[in-house]
């Protein structure tokens, strides 16, 4: 199995995470390939966000390891993971509230050691791409919600990541905002040879964006593959709707 994975991929293998004896993740293995958008779905409390935290080194692993493009990541080292080219966004937006939009985006580049001037250039380009250049000098706290979400993604991109982990990027957006986001996201993988993992509850959005989805429930992988197949998978339906769904449906 390991041999099939291209060395350019992000591989999180056999990830187990425990909180005070509670198993939040149980031996999950997931691969993100450059150039693809992979959907991560599963019912409430199934461990999706924990998986992103585990990959980025923000929670300690009980077992498993993370490999980014062939490099094994040390345990609990979010910095190393980030500097190896893994960017992320958060379920609840985490912007640097008192910094301007431009500064927010610059930080990601600055953190990688890029000079102030160059970072500014990178930020300008990305903001242009996201159609937010006019807001560059706005204090982040004063943005509306949809813009905050977009700035968060723009910020992650400014670090020129190889992989981007998006935790519910469309949550709280209205229809048109989420449409626009969708369009922007769809272009990214090809343009930048970027691998994206996306968590969202909005199934139409997931099906529009992703070819492949990975489904977890109660901390375990229950299905993975093309979205049409997964949707019909009895295990998935059971996970979402309840144990006796098969007989009833």
């Amino acid at each position, binding site marked *: 199995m390991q041999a099939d994975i291209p060395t350019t991929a992000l591989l999180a293998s056999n990830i187990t995470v425990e909180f005070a004896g509670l198993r939040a993740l149980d031996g999950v293995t997931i691969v993100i390939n450059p150039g693809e958008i992979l959907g991560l779905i599963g019912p409430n409390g199934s461990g999706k966000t924990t998986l992103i935290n585990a990959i980025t080194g923000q929670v300690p692993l009980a077992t498993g390891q993370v490999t980014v493009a062939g490099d094994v990541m040390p345990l609990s080292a979010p910095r190393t993971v980030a500097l190896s080219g893994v960017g992320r966004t958060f379920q609840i937006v985490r*912007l640097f*509230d008192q910094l301007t939009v431009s500064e927010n985006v610059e930080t990601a580049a*600055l953190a990688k050691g890029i000079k102030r001037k160059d970072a500014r250039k990178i930020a300008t380009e990305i903001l242009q791409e996201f159609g937010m250049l006019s807001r560059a000098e706005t204090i982040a706290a004063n943005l509306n919600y949809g813009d905050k979400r977009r700035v968060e993604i723009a910020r992650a991109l400014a670090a020129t990541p190889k992989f981007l982990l998006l935790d519910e990027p469309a949550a709280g957006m209205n229809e048109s905002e989420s449409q626009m986001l969708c369009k922007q996201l769809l272009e990214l993988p090809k343009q930048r040879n970027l691998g994206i993992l996306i968590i969202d509850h909005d199934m139409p959005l997931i099906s529009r964006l992703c070819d492949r989805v990975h489904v977890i429930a109660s901390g375990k992988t229950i299905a993975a593959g093309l979205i049409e197949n997964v949707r019909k998978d009895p295990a998935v339906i059971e996970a979402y709707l309840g144990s006796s769904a098969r007989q009833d449906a």
Partner: protein
Amino acid sequence: MSFLMNRHTLTVASLCGLLLMLVFISYAVDVRVFTRIATTLCINVVMVVGLQSFMGNTGILSFAHIGFMGVGAYTSALLTIPAQMRGMALPDLYPFMEGLSASPILAIFLGGIVAAVIAAAVSYPLMRLSDAAAVITSFALLVVLHTVMLHWSEVTNGPRTLFGLPAITSLPLTAIVAAGAIAVALMFKESRLGILARATRDDETAARAMGINTPRVRWLAFILSALLAGIGGGLWGHFVGSFSPKAFYLKETFVILGMLVIGGPGTITGAVLGVFIVTAAFESLRTLEVVLNSAQIFSGQVVGVTEIVLAFSMIAVLALRPGGLVPTREIGDAIVGLIRKRKG
């Protein structure tokens, strides 16, 4: 034109203009007490702007700042107390230190460097901590620094007053140093490190996920802050001529902190404004104290009114305007914004 329009240049220029006006007025008024107040004010600008470099950019409350002021003051004293005075001022001085000497101006800056070096040496591991643990450790650091100053008779003359520092600190000198401190602090705030530090302040988790080395960034801010505190301490030492470790403890911490909190820790404009406002209020209240004293309303002498008023103002500001009077925008930003608005 574009140079003039630069908001950072404008900020520095405006704040330095304020200092310049202070110097100008003090020369115009030509009252020694006013000059002394103005000089103290400029020293406080150095101190408060120094504290802002750390607290404002990292969002961590530091109690240790005033301790580094002490380090600077004592270092400068060791280098400048005239040889003939040393026997009396520092009776227990280590023999190898007897030969130390430097010109006062140099000594003031060396004091800053020694403070920065000590800060660098002791503080790196502390920068991992946040919230209450960070505050308690900084408080503990202040107690440690204070205890050392209080008892290291060989170097500080123990709890006793150290005297004999040449009184070279003048208003122009402090005003220049204060202007320099403002410029340095603003440069730091807008530098790569400054932005990264402010990022860690606004959201530590996101900053870490981005690969920012939080402890290192905070550490550098802390060193800069200690450097400015040390310089401030040296200036102050050469201003008052004699002091004891008591001068670098909680009461003074409270005043410096009060100035920053009221002005707004997020901005250098706030820090400077805080110093001006609190100084003005303090001096007016002191006059009030004198009036009350002569009116004999209270049984004894009226003391402590200034501190009480400052304390209530701090609580009020924090409750009503948690970011201080100038929470986010530097004066330069405001001016540029105004100009743009007028144009557009």
